């Protein structure tokens, strides 16, 4: 009997398996985030599911920022890159330029001056 009661409150969710991903309720579509920058073109064969074009755009912006951050840490920053978002059929959805992903503040003439 003891064994039975222990099994009943077993943490193993036999009946109530829960998925560990979020946001599966709404409709999703697969988007591909192809990168074009100073390192050439990197196709995204795998893609990711997103619930809207807007989410895909946010994802591309986060991605562009992370690529630029890594470059800056290596001592370079190439603003000519862009993320070319395509749909499952490989048709263009939108392009996010790296320059759109950051608030650029050009250096002023006084920048770096001691006063």
């Amino acid at each position, binding site marked *: 009997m003891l064994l039975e009661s*222990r099994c009943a*409150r*077993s*943490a*193993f*969710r*036999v009946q109530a*398996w*829960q*998925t*560990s*991903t*979020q946001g599966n309720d709404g409709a999703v579509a697969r988007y591909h*985030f192809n*990168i074009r920058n100073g*390192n050439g073109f*990197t196709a*995204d064969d*795998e893609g*990711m599911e997103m619930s809207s074009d807007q989410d895909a755009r946010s*994802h*591309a912006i*986060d*991605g*562009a*920022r*992370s*690529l630029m951050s*890594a470059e800056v*840490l*290596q001592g370079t920053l190439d603003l000519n890159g862009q*993320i070319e978002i395509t749909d499952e059929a490989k048709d263009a959805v939108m392009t996010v330029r790296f320059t759109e992903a950051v608030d650029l503040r050009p250096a002023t003439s006084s920048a770096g001056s001691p006063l």
Partner: protein
Amino acid sequence: MISVGETLARHLASFGELPRADFEAVAALRAEVRDVPRQTDVLRNGDHPNHVVVVLSGLMHRYTIGPEGKRQIHSFYLPNEAPSLETLYIDYMDNNLGAVVPTRIGLISHDQIYRIIDERPEARKLLWRQTLVQAAVFRQWLVRNSNLPAHMALAHLFCEMYVRADAVDLVENGVCSLPLTQEYFADALGLTAVHTNRTLQALRETGAIEWRSGQLTVHDWPKLREIARFDPNYLHLRSTRLARSR
């Protein structure tokens, strides 16, 4: 077909000497087998498990959801590994354990393992050792994520998974199953999926590896190790071909 108990016995024996009688005692433990669908949790933060999990097939991961909803993966578990032995002596889960792909697991009750621990000092030592090695692996994941640039970090993760797969005989002709998506790599390495994709491409271009459709092919092991500066000592594997080759 190898029993769940025997799978656990072999896992323990991969960390050190397990006397025949102890091996047989562990191999004889009773277990339940469960099939877990993809992307499904087996244990969640706050749970009080009374079984340990043995992975029989598939792939599992442990992760924490951060305060801003971002997932940090802190380990992957291959078949023949036992991801939750520490639940024997901690009261509740402080993270989540879930299947990445459809995964078969075996569950062995804590009570049976407590008996092994009480009666068999050599098996007890190896259980200790297994959990200490887990801690060593977590330390290495911390170093990897905070110290290495993306291409080294990804190469290092590939090295680790490849050596661990080899240790449980899951590498064949330089190929092992690693059924992850970019998103899983990203969340394990603290990168974005876009950065991960670029990094994967950069690693492919070195000729050291190919990773496609959930399969890792290592074309040039010395080169991959060199890129990652990988030293497998933290895995404390008793003997594997790859761990020994320097």
